[in-house]
């Protein structure tokens, strides 16, 4: 064997799961924080590269693994048909589609839908969860690896308004949440078999926020589960508590992470620094009040979209507001970012690009997509992907 291949071979065995910086593997991408870590950012001016038709409803985000785009939707009179699509990222051509059937309850508020949680991937598998608590694991070629019916397993795990908590995968464990007024839980599921590694009770209260990743220098990664009670840091492989912030948090927008600090959606925004088993509050700004959209950290700044559709830029140091920019709202989806730009789509279908480096911030482009958009965009390999009920767009 040519010895020049040995390092490559070793690296393949050490890191059997292929994940690339340009991949966008879950709700709000890397660490669930909404900011692309890829070297290649989308261009300043975007155009629609392709549009793919979708047969049902959905406000889950697309995710991108290599050259594949995955998106979910639900169709039928009761939204009981659950679709997983795989599209070719370059052309928008459908690679495959799987249609499964809901085993849990499909009732939801009219504004949301059964395909509300965003799927996630470990680079090798795609995990698609729905409001019905159905959970499917496919390989990237569409082969079914395993499935679960979490309401079939736990009969009172449902929310009549619909659920939207997106799963996240870390180190061989898929962390799922089904937090509701009745049988409320989170579970760590073995990505290989779909069997529970652990299951913990969660506050009996409806919750639509999603988990984020947090990691201290040199320490094991932590998954932070947000609820009305606060943020619970757990070890993803065991579900054991690492730390617990108990001063309450939002049940709709999710928190953000930047440079080891959690910017929790709690009493406005509260900056938290977990250290060992404790959590220190660095600052709190109750005027930084996210609406439905989750905040994000871009560079040295925090960005919040409030309920009036105003984008607020604040410092990470103390939460001081720097500027406000009125966007064309209203918003259900969250902003994402790459380079110096923030991308966000309004409910009325106005996809907006914001230059965060100008003095007061500026909308540098608005693309009218002419559909209701309730989802959060995804970024990969210089392109932005966004979906409505009926369409998936690639913009680049």
């Amino acid at each position, binding site marked *: 064997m040519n010895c020049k291949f040995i390092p490559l071979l070793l690296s393949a*065995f050490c890191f059997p799961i*292929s994940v690339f910086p340009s991949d966008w593997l879950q709700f709000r991408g890397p660490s669930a924080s909404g900011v692309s870590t890829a070297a290649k950012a989308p261009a300043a001016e975007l155009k629609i590269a392709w549009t793919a038709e979708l047969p049902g409803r959905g406000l889950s985000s697309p995710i991108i693994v290599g050259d594949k785009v995955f998106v979910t939707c639900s169709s039928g*009179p009761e939204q009981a048909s659950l679709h997983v699509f795989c599209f070719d990222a370059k052309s928008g051509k459908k690679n495959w589609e799987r249609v*499964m059937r809901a085993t849990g309850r499909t009732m939801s*508020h009219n504004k949301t839908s059964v395909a509300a949680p965003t799927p996630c991937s470990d680079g090798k598998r795609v995990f698609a969860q729905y409001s019905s608590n159905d959970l499917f694991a496919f390989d990237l070629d569409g082969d079914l690896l395993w499935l679960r019916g979490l309401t079939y397993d736990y009969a009172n795990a449902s929310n009549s308004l619909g659920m939207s908590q997106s799963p996240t995968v870390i180190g061989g464990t898929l962390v799922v949440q089904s937090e509701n*007024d009745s049988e409320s839980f989170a579970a760590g599921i073995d990505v290989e078999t779909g069997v529970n590694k652990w299951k913990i009770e969660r506050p009996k209260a409806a919750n639509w926020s999603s988990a984020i990743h947090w990691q201290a220098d040199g320490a094991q990664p932590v998954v932070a589960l947000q609820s009305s009670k606060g943020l619970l840091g757990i070890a993803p492989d065991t579900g054991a508590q690492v730390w617990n912030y108990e001063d309450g948090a939002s049940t709709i927008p999710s928190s953000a992470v930047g440079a080891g600090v959690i910017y929790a959606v709690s009493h406005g925004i509260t900056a938290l620094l977990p250290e060992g088993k404790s959590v220190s509050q660095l600052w709190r700004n109750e005027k930084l009040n996210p609406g439905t959209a989750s905040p994000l950290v871009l560079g040295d700044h925090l960005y919040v979209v409030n309920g009036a559709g105003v984008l607020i830029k604040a410092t990470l140091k103390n939460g001081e507001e720097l500027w406000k920019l009125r966007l064309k709202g209203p918003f259900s989806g969250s902003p994402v970012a790459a380079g110096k730009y923030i991308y966000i789509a309004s409910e009325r279908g106005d996809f907006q690009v914001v230059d965060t480096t100008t003095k007061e911030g500026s909308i540098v482009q608005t693309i009218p997509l002419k559909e209701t958009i309730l989802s959060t965009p995804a970024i990969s390999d210089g392109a932005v992907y966004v979906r409505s009920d009926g369409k998936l767009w690639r913009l680049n």
Partner: protein
Amino acid sequence: MRIKRFTFIPLPSMRQLLLCFLLATAASAADLSSSIEKLRAVGKEGKGNAEATKAWQEVAAADAAALTDILAGMNGANPLAENWLRAAVGVVAERAAAKGGSISIDSLVAFLKDTKNAAAPRVLAFDLIRKSDPAMSDKLAEGLLADPSSELRRYPVTKLIEEGDAALAASKKEAAVATFQKALVAARDEDHIKNVAKKLRDLGTKVDLPRHFGFLMKWQMIAPFTNVERKGFDEVFPPETSIDLTASYPGKGGEAKWVEFESKDDYGMIDFNKPFTMLKEVTGYALAEFNSTEERSAEIRIGCKNGWKVWLNGELLFARDEYHRGMKLDQYKLPCRLKAGKNTILVKCCQNEQTETWTVEWQFQLRLCDSTGTAIAEKM
């Protein structure tokens, strides 16, 4: 620079080789039966997933000729197993379509027409026929008006509604009424029923929706027991241990007594606020009898946005402690077994402490039907 995906661990290649091998050997039904059984053996909390993963590869690699065998594997399977098999059917059909369409429509039609097969695989068979031969599926749909599957009835009911609309547009009122009535008799889905009922009423025709749905309209009700701090949900009040319609009990803020209540609502709403006024942090019970012509399987379907429990003949069927998140027809489907003669249904309905305007409802709707949603007629 775009980094290429390393493939030193050749898992995809192995999978492709396995697929090629399995395709080359053209899996027969006999070959598949063991794999199908492994898929049927999956259960709660991931039970059987590990075995099913491998078995699924074998089933999904089958030739299109095996489609009806895979569909038949769904008969009597639990919903999780149905999904494993459904995914395999999808892959087999997709591969056949990619090759230019080698699905045997005749065998799928025979499978669809055999109503001994379960509803789920028959719906799947119909979908495959519809994709391959839309004209054939249109023709088949005409015979599905009284189908055991409510999902399959949707096609002919939709067509009847269109025909009724066309008759109306042509000023053929009698024909329109007759067509809409035919559609209503066949319709099982709420959207269809609502739509057709409105059209008929607009045309001056009476429609008995409670009877169509099978709502229980006459109840004995008692309240108010306490539900302060939502503790009434778990507390056992007297109606849970014995029924004495002449008894009264100390309640929250007054005496709890039984009253008769008959709903006049099209959708069978049993509203505690009507006899007991708008109260908060209270628990009520409602009792109904149903005289069944025979011992049989049935479904109690309840819609409720309060905390609730349902007992049939003293057996607790289900309990749900969610408040004010929404209510709809058939929100919860409770499979049960009716005995011949008198059956008693007891509903516990808890109101919580919320004060918002959208939390005043303290009510439920309950109907008795079979698994397709067809109302079960009471023995008079």
